[in-house]
Structures are given as C-alpha cells and as structure tokens.
C-alpha cells in the first residue's frame, strides 16, 4: 500500500467510524440480532465487519442507547437488540446533525466548483 493509499484508507475509516453508530441506531428501530442486523445493513449498502459490529452493539447498549434481550429463535438462543427510548432521542439529534453536515458539505463542494 502506498503512502497516499494508506492516508486515504485512514481518512476513509475515520469518516466511516462516526457514521456506523448512526446507521446501527437507525436500523435498530426494527429489532435484530447481530447477524441479521449485519445482513440488513449490507443489503442497504453499508457492509460492516462482524468484528466491528458486534462489539459496537455492546458499546451502544452499555451507553443506554440500545435495549437487548435473549430469546430463542430457530432452536437457538440469540440476543436481540432494539433502540431504547434514550436511543430514539439521540438518534433524532444525530440525524439532524447528519443532515446539516450533509447539506453543508454539498454547499461547500458546489461553491468550490463554481
């Protein structure tokens, strides 16, 4: 990997890191366990490594943004996650912030092209 590629990769990961939490919170308005959540995100265009996603779920739960419960499904115990009431509030704020950033970046990008 060249220096430029390495730099790009680092910046890309940094950019993604902030977005993943938001994507997970948004997707968990509907209940999922780890594997189906990963599949749902990938189907919508956001592939996440298992080794990133599963610890992230734990962290978001410990921060009170997600609620979880163990339940049997297909003869197997699984831990299902969904957005908590605190998580809903935070998600709304984060989405607003996300939209503002998105709009600002669009404006900056377009003004740069003029």
């Amino acid at each position: 990997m060249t220096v430029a590629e390495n730099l790009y990769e680092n910046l890309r990961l940094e950019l993604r890191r902030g977005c993943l939490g938001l994507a997970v919170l948004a997707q968990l308005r509907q209940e999922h366990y780890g594997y189906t959540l990963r599949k749902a995100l990938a189907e919508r265009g956001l592939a996440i490594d298992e080794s990133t996603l599963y610890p992230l779920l734990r962290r978001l739960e410990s921060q009170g943004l997600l609620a979880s419960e163990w339940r049997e499904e297909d003869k197997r115990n699984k831990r299902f996650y969904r957005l908590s009431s605190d998580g809903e509030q935070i998600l709304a704020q984060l989405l607003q912030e996300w939209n503002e950033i998105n709009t600002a970046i669009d404006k900056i990008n377009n003004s740069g092209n003029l």
Partner: protein
Amino acid sequence: MDRLERYLQSVKKYLPWQRQDDILAELRANLESQLEDNEAEIGRPLTDAEIETWLKQFGPPMQVAARYAPQQYLIGPNIFPTYWYILRMACFWVLVVYSIANAIQIAVANSTWNAVAHAIFFIPSVLVMTAGWVTLVFAVLEYVLANYPQKWPELTSWIDRLPSKVPDIEMDFASGKKPRSYPMAVAGVVFSVLFLIWLLLVPKHPVLMFGPGAQYMNDSPFLLAPVWYQFYWWIVALNVVQLAWRCIDLLRGAWQHPNRAEQIVSKALGLVPILLVLFVPDHVYVMLKNSGADMAHYGATATVINQAIHTSTLIVCAIVTIQLLWEIGRTIWEVSRKRAAAM
C-alpha cells in the same frame, strides 16, 4: 463445528472475565447463523478448510476479543499535552540538578576521571527513572479522572491550567528580532551547566584550562598571585548567577527574549572581577616561587609579564565598559521611544 468451537474457546481466553460467557454465547449464535447461511448458499456443509478460511477472515482471536474491551489509555488525549510538558520540564530540571550536584561533588572530592565518566554514563538512567515516575503519576491521574471524574473536579481544572502562565507578548517582535526558541534556551542552560562543571574542575585539574602548559607552570619559577583566586571565584559566582537567571527565564516561560535589565546587570557584574585584577596593588599578577634565589634570573621576566597582563586587562576593561555604556544607552533610548509612542 469443532473448528468453530475451538475458535470460540480461543476468543474466550482473551475476553474480560466478568462478561465472557455472555459475549461468547452471543458470538456463537451469530457465527452459527452465518455458517448456516453460508452452507445453505452452497447447498452442502463447509469443509474444515473452508471453515478455517472463513474464521481467518473474522480475525485472530486476541484481536476479536480486544474489540470487546473498553477503550483504555495509559495516558489519554485529554491530559497528554500536560503530561508531555511536565515530562520535558522534569527531565530538564533533574538533569540540571544532577549535573550541578555531581560537579560540586567531583570538584570538592578531588575525584578522578572515572568519577566524571561514571556521572555522565549514569545520566540516561536518571532520565529514564524520572520519565518513569512522571508517567506513573499521570497514569494514576488518568485512571482517577476516567473512573471518578465527579469526585475530584478540581483535579481536572488544575490539569487544564498547566502551564499556569502564558508568556507575555514580547516587545522585540516589533523590531523584527527572531525570538529564541525553547530548544535554544534549553541548550543555553545545558552549556552553562557544562561550562560551570568545567570551571569547577579547573583548580583540581589545571590541564583542563592550560593543557600541556599546566605542567610547565608547575615546573616554572613563577607563581600566580592571590588576585587570580579571587578572580576565579568571581567568575564562578557570575556563572552561577547567569545560570540561575536562565533557569528562572525558562520556568517563567520568558526564554524567547532575554531580559534587557539582566543583560546590563550581567555586564556590570562582569566588570567587577576585571576591575579587581586591574587595580591590584603594584600590578603583581605573577610572582616568583623563590624570590631570593630566582630574582636575578627571572625578576625582569616577571616584571614584563605583569606589565603585559596589566595592559591587556586595561584594554579588556575598556571594551567591557564601552559595551556596558552602549547597552545602557540603547535601553534608555528604547524606553524613551516607547514612552513617546505611547503619548
């Protein structure tokens, strides 16, 4: 399945023990679901080799487990700038104190070169030890701030305030003078310390100043007059004062531009030992060891040497006096110019 189970057992070894069963159960459920999906996709069970390849993609057990651990810092980004500042200051001051203490000990105890070499080679150990202690203290602070931020709120504000004083805006920026950098200021102090060490070693080891001439002086019929001993201690005292000033400037964060008053006082004090030598009674700078026996042979030479030293001292005294008057004049002119500009 056996390979998956072995993989999970490996991950378990590195998980935080309080939550390892819970995390492992969840991980097992997710991986088994994924494995079933993969097998359904290809319409047959995965071979051992395929399972191994798939698990390798998932990551080494230690790294997978590490992602479940809370983020931990020995010294986190919040207090790192303060830590770095304190570490540099501590190492610098320990080096200064260590150098002075060893120089005095070597000078007083009439130590050999081995003692000097030992003192120098021990410097890295002293610095590593200092860095270790500072790091330990800040690691404890980091732990306390991360785990009990409400218990000691004053600790956070104290760390945020360090260094306690920002340096004043220096007036000489206007004159376009390049401010002295911190490494230059530190180098100034280090060289002052080294010079002082060298100076303190000279009485016991004259060869450091006179080289091979030290032996000649020992064998010669001439003897240095007592005024040179007074001169020597004046020079030592002056260097100690200058070193102290430089250290204080560093501590105050005022190293960028040396204080004009300090420069004037330094030059004025530097004039004292020169005047001391200049006005020595009868201009006697060297004497004969055995005046009775050697007077006939070396009396005239001693007189020439004394006259030459007196003339040289007179010239040096004139130069230093002119420099001092120039400094005073320039300072008065700058002060009056600033006053006029302020009016």
